[in-house]
């Protein structure tokens, strides 16, 4: 009788439903935010879309569930969502004790500090005694305490559940500093300051105090579903390496490059191995774009965030984004 809560493997459930239920952040510009038409957009959202494109051939077959940092793991553990793509840092505890598994890293992030320029602070080392706004239940909250302890400084945390409320408190001056993953700080700076404040009133301090590899998470135990999530990301990175974009993907079908032929399913085999359609990567690239396209559109030069590629450049450009060989 025990165990009836899960009828079968996660992948079977998702396939039978015909829709992927994806847990995303509750409104972070560039990563996951519903636009004026109510359509979700962002780098995290593109991960969900890529997986849906691989599974169903249609990147629109996703239901987005916005989750706070507090709710997300319980939502995933309890089966409310199939996967998380919400700026979740891959850590040992989460990989083990929390019963999760992680896909490929979609964004290499690090924790930083956002301050008002008026304070005249140039370095995080000058933050002794500061009041710090932080969202609860994050690695951020722990890194913050670690950093101040390591540097023999004190701080007063203001911890509010909803990320929007944390930001509002910061902009209202309730805290001197807002700490989060740097990407999120850029998003906050670009989108949120209430007038008369402008993005230029705020500065991200140079110190990066942690490694935050952000990756999609799924429940431990369904390796095939995990494979699809992992290789959907690799397909996007590989496409960028090979110069395949959403615009030229149809022409690339005629390419003689064996890697491209395997990726796009012209030479079959990869789709079968993953247990999805041979056109899986083609569908991802056609509908979502390659990793570079997604990056530029959502958080790079084509967006208000204007985040540089940095660590997230391709390996051959000196970055860390490296797709495992698709063969």
């Amino acid at each position, binding site marked *: 009788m025990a*165990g009836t809560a899960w009828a079968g493997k996660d992948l079977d459930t998702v396939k039978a439903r015909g829709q992927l239920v994806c847990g995303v952040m509750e409104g972070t510009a560039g990563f996951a935010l519903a636009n004026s038409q109510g359509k979700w957009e962002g780098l995290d959202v593109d991960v969900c879309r890529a997986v849906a494109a691989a599974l169903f051939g249609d990147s629109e077959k996703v239901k987005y569930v916005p989750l706070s940092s507090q709710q997300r793991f319980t939502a995933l553990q309890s089966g409310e969502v199939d996967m998380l793509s919400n700026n979740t840092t891959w850590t040992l505890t989460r990989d083990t004790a*929390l019963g999760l598994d992680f896909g490929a890293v979609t964004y290499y992030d690090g924790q930083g500090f956002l301050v008002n320029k008026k304070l005249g602070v140039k370095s995080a080392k000058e933050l002794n005694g*500061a009041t710090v706004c932080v969202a609860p*239940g994050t690695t951020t909250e722990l890194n913050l305490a670690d950093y101040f302890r390591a540097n023999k400084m004190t*701080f007063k*945390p203001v911890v509010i559940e909803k990320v929007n409320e944390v930001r509002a408190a910061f902009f*209202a001056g309730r805290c001197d500093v807002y700490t989060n993953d740097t990407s999120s700080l850029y998003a906050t700076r670009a989108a949120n300051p209430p007038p008369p404040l402008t993005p230029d009133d705020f500065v991200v301090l140079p110190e990066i105090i942690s490694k935050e590899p952000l990756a999609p998470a799924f429940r431990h135990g369904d390796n095939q579903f995990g494979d699809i999530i992992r290789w959907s990301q690799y397909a996007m990175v590989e496409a960028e390496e090979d110069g395949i974009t959403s615009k030229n993907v149809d022409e690339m079908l005629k390419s003689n490059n064996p890697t491209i032929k395997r990726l796009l399913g012209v030479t079959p085999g990869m789709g079968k191995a993953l247990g999805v359609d041979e056109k899986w990567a083609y569908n991802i690239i056609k509908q979502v774009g390659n990793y570079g396209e997604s990056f530029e559109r959502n958080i790079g030069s084509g967006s208000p965030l204007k985040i540089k590629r940095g660590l997230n450049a391709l390996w051959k450009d000196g970055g860390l984004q490296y797709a495992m060989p698709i063969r």
Partner: protein
Amino acid sequence: MAVETLGSSTRPKVAPWNDPVVRGWIFQIVVVGLVGLLAWFLVSNTLDNLARQKIASGYDYLHHEAGFQIGDTMIPYSPADTYARAILVGMLNTLKVSVLGIVLCTILGTLIGIGRLSPNWLLAKICEWYVECFRNVPLLLWLFLFYKIISESFPGPRQAISVLGTLFLSNRGLYFPVPVPNPIHAWMGLALLVGVAAAVAVKRWARKRQDATGLPFPAIRTGIALVIGLPLVVWLLGGAPHEMSWPVVKGFNFQGGSVIQPEFTALLFGLVVYTSAFVAEIVRSGILAINRGQGEAAAALGLSRGQSMRLVLLPQALRVIIPPMTSQYLSITKNSSLAIAIGYPDLVAAVNVTINQTGQAIENVLIIMAAYLTVSLGISAFMNWYNKRIALRER
């Protein structure tokens, strides 16, 4: 004896399946069995799923280092302390806001409730509006409003509003000077306890004397004098140490003094105004439940309005007031868990962070439930005891 023989002898002989007593037992056993089975199913299913997902279970994590900071603590706490201590810090914060909330909402609610019955039209209307406004809007919205008002309308610490250079009001909270710790403070605390005990004794003595001789004694004024006076005398005898720790802007914020943080203020304020509206209605209904003649009789005896309220009406009204008041005290305690929305580190906040860091949702939720159950049963038990004590004794 006679009844027993009568009962057993007249009982007709019927088949067991037609016997109402046997049937009753069978149904009880079936129901208990089904509930037990359901519980077993839920527990074993959950454990099975947790094991399958490789989620650790048990309470070992309580001894691990918590690693997160808490902004408002009553006992010393650092991120190097354990989860158990972090949860204790949250628990104490919940108790602090609940106890203060209960005391303040009782006082405010009683005043508003009496105010609604005032012959002064303006006062009665103001109290009525107070009740209608605060009672009919969800508490969460009041909390958000108060928190926004405090955090957005007050200036930063450097531009803090200063009251006589003593109190500093900013969006970091209300900073005020506190005495630098001195050994005399412990003795003053002792004197305070003695003062309270003496005040109670005086009150008893005055009552006895009035019962015996009819002579009144100003017991309340004497009591207040004792409670304030004794510690003051001790302080003076101790050489009147008056060194104070003053709040001064240094670096990012005020250093020194003590602070009431905006999150706490917003939560306490929200809980008090919301709950006091309900308390006011309970008090009003309690007073209206008393026979009109009681008030008239009190007036005829020459008691003032205040005296008749305090000595005649309220003591009788309490019998109607106490049971629903218990519910309000329970709600204020439970509603304090909304603190998480405005960032006050209460029990729920501490446990939620723990859930996120350890992934052990079930164990942690059980801790919260046990904590609220204990506090609520404690309040109930106390109020039931008090209710029995003031119940009408028929002679």
